[in-house]
């Protein structure tokens, strides 16, 4: 169980006496995929580095000095770090608790819980932030009004336009990442080890702590890093909740640099340290996890038994329900109310009821149709191309097909830390002038989304591959199939639900993407998220609610049909 798969492959190859075992006819495919992703990353990064290092006087550090001596800019960096740290902590706590409860215990209504976590995942953070603005604005927010009328208080219960408010909302929409990572791992751990511990006399809580937790450690650390980096790169939520209170974060500051007259040089300089930080974080992750193998599932079926929660069963369920009402029920409720009201802050009486927001959004407002078409076109294109590419890349790094494959994962994961908006600057610089002019079409966004969603698609396929022991592939190859064939006929079918998950992760990532689109759109290539942001800036609450509901409804529809096509539940592993 603990023999590294690559070693096995080598033995097998040696056993067959292949002196030229390094030669592989499928090599060009792997090299092409690797080069393509490096190109995807290097072009915008190169653009950012060169732009940041030039001032009017030529090569200079002037931009860096300007950006890193101004207290306002430093404050923005500090805000981002603080927010992301706490988002990471909360997301890991909530996400792993839920992931574990759903997969390893007898929590009631598990399928509903999964579906609702899925719903939080699908909810674009900017939409969540918008909904929470209506729920917890200090004076007109619905929750604060309830609180005031219930307790006769003069002051507000919560003010969402604060750093804490921002952390809260961003954590609500980051924890599903951790949840899915943990749930996937917990699904795949068979109970063999737990049984062993049980035989040796450990009780069920001790097993959870000493067996299950350490086995999920890589996923926990990975989850923190993903949640941290995810929140670092969010733009919509801080723009909606931070800016009104004068709170800038890295992303909103970079966005501000682009306003006319654009200071691309400062924006570029501002983002370079972020890139360095990512390298550091990813290196740290590697160091912490070492090269320990976690292949606890092979081609054999493991069994898992559920932990009985006992008297904690219903309290645990109530806690889960409360968390999910914060991320799903309350926000969706207020969106629905705002969509059906003339004045969102007034009670939804017959007088205040209207369908006018719907007719305006769909039949009068001229941006709607075009944006919907663009959004779904981009979603399907990117998800399909992205899954394909991610599969190839994850396979390369996982099976160490190329020399330096470990470094390849840096290129693939780097977009995670590049706020979409920075990536967008790079692409903006790279693709607004010959030889390749993509600006003004949806293709510049396609490139942006493909790059940006690669880490999600990649980590999904990677972690799926990690749990599929190479022994089955090796068996196929011994019979004579080449790598591609083995991948196609053995690994991919085994990883099917993981790949479908990757497709829908990317799709959902694309249709809710805002931070790169906000810079790359031109009026003819607008997407729904940009339209929503535009509407937000003008305070068109009703129309935003309508478009938000549309975005959610279509996402759910697509997910349900993909799920139906796949014939099983794919989010966070199988139904088990």
């Amino acid at each position: 169980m603990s023999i590294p798969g690559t070693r096995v492959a080598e033995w097998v190859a040696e056993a067959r006496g292949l002196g030229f075992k390094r030669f592989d006819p499928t090599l060009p495919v792997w090299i092409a995929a690797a080069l393509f992703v490096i190109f995807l990353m290097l072009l915008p990064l190169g653009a950012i580095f060169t732009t940041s290092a030039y001032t009017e006087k030529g090569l200079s550090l002037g931009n860096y000095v300007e950006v890193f001596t101004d207290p306002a800019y430093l404050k923005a960096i500090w805000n981002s770090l603080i927010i992301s740290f706490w988002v990471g902590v909360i997301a890991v706590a909530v996400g792993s608790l839920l992931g574990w409860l759903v997969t390893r215990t007898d929590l009631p209504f598990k399928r509903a819980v999964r579906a609702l976590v899925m719903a939080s995942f699908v909810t674009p953070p900017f939409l969540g932030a918008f909904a929470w603005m209506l729920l917890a604005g200090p004076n007109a927010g619905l929750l604060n009004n309830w609180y005031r009328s219930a307790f006769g208080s003069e002051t507000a219960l919560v003010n969402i336009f604060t750093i804490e408010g921002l952390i809260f909302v961003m954590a609500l929409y980051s924890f599903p990442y951790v949840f899915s990572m943990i749930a996937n791992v917990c699904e795949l751990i068979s109970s063999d080890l737990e049984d062993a511990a049980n035989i040796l006399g450990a009780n069920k809580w001790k097993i959870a702590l000493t067996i299950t937790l350490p086995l999920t450690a890589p996923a926990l650390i990975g989850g923190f890093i993903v949640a941290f980096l995810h929140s670092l790169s969010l733009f919509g939520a801080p723009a909606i909740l931070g800016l009104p209170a004068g709170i800038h974060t890295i992303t909103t500051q970079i966005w501000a640099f682009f306003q006319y007259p654009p200071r691309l040089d400062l924006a570029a300089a501002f983002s370079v340290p972020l890139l360095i930080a990512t390298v550091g974080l990813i290196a740290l992750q590697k160091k912490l996890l070492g090269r320990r193998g976690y292949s606890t599932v092979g081609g054999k079926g493991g069994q898992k038994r559920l932990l009985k929660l006992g008297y904690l069963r219903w309290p645990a369920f109530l806690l889960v329900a409360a968390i999910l009402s914060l991320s799903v029920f309350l926000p969706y409720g207020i969106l629905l109310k705002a969509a059906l009201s003339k004045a969102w802050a007034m009670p939804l009486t017959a007088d205040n009821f209207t369908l006018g927001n719907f007719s305006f959004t769909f039949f009068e407002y001229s941006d709607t149709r075009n944006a919907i078409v663009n959004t779904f076109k981009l979603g399907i294109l990117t998800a399909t191309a992205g899954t394909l590419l991610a599969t190839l890349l994850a396979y390369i790094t996982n099976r160490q097909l190329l020399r330096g494959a470990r470094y390849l994962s840096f290129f693939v994961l780097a977009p995670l830390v590049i706020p979409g908006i920075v990536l967008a600057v790079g692409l903006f610089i790279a693709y607004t002038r010959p030889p390749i002019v993509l600006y003004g079409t949806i293709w510049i966004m396609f490139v942006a989304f493909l790059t940006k969603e690669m880490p999600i698609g990649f980590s999904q396929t990677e972690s799926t591959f990690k749990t599929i022991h190479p022994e089955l592939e090796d068996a196929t190859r011994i019979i004579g199939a080449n790598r591609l064939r083995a991948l196609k006929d053995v690994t991919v079918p085994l990883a099917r639900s993981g790949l479908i998950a990757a497709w829908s992760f990317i799709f959902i990532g694309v249709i809710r993407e805002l931070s790169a689109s906000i810079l790359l759109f031109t009026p003819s290539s607008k997407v729904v998220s940009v339209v929503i942001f535009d509407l937000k800036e003008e305070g068109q609450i009703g129309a935003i609610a309508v478009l938000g509901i549309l975005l959610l409804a279509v996402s759910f529809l697509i997910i349900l049909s993909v799920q139906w096509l796949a014939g099983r539940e794919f989010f966070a592993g199988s139904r088990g």
Partner: protein
Amino acid sequence: MKHLVAIVLVALAALSTSSSHAQDAAMVEAARKEGKVVWYTSLAIPSSTALAHYFMSKYKGIEVIVNRNGSQRVLQIVMSEAGASIKNVDVIHTSDAGHFVLLKGKGLLAQYSPKAAEVFPAGFKDPAGYFYGMRATLSAIAYNPRVINEKDAPKTWKDVLDPKWRGKEVTAHPGYSGIIMTHVLALVKQYGWEYFQELAKNKLHIVQSANDPAQVVASGERPLGVNGAEYFYYKTMKQGNPIKIVYPKEGVPLVVSPTAIAKDAPHPNAARLFTEFILSKENQQILADKEGLYTGHPEVTYPKDKPMLKDLKLWPVDAEELEKRNAELKKRFTEFFGA
């Protein structure tokens, strides 16, 4: 003899109208061939959408593609499209008159003399014929009468500086809105930057569009708007929302929002037809009646519950100065308010 003169006059009149009709028809025909007009505008979404629909119902077969954004964003998009040689926009309209000085200087505007604009007063016309004031509005104070009593409500610009309003006020942003850019320049010229420095101490809620404060005030999230597009406050009020508008006696910033045709307009005929339409008396009257706007057209009448511009002390700003100080105004405002 008298008869002859009369006949000649009638004939001349007939001739001139028929020739102008023929000209109009030719313009409509040419516009119809192009099929659409792309409009980058900072006019509020409901208003610009309504205007596009008036046009489309009058000139069937010509679609108006409305791209609404804040004035500063409209400029940003126009400039980056120009930088990438993308020819998409036909008609450009923002509330920052300085933009048109800039765009004209960069050679991005087409010269055009709309017939409709002949009657417009001097403040609504570029002497060189590149841009025309499509509408005018004010930047005003507004409050929510359900939260603030009329007698407590601010009457002057300085009243909003009172610390009792801390945490109760909302401002829009000059980095987004041309109306607010104009507002900031007008107030800085009157009271200096100390005014905004003092105002920032009240911990304002900062929104982007000059139209957004209307919703923020009406919902009660912040019951006092220290600036904002008067036409949108008015429109929101007329929809039955709790809003009262204050026009300070000492003066009100007047915002004239120009319209121009892009030099490389892909639909130049439709652009001209659309320009004629938006400046026509018919449309200018609609803007006054339905959207709560002021206009440059001398024959337009206004709703009874709106003050006449001549009864207010107006603070107009100079477009050249607006253009020159754009970056400074944004930067200092951001310094005081944090974002």
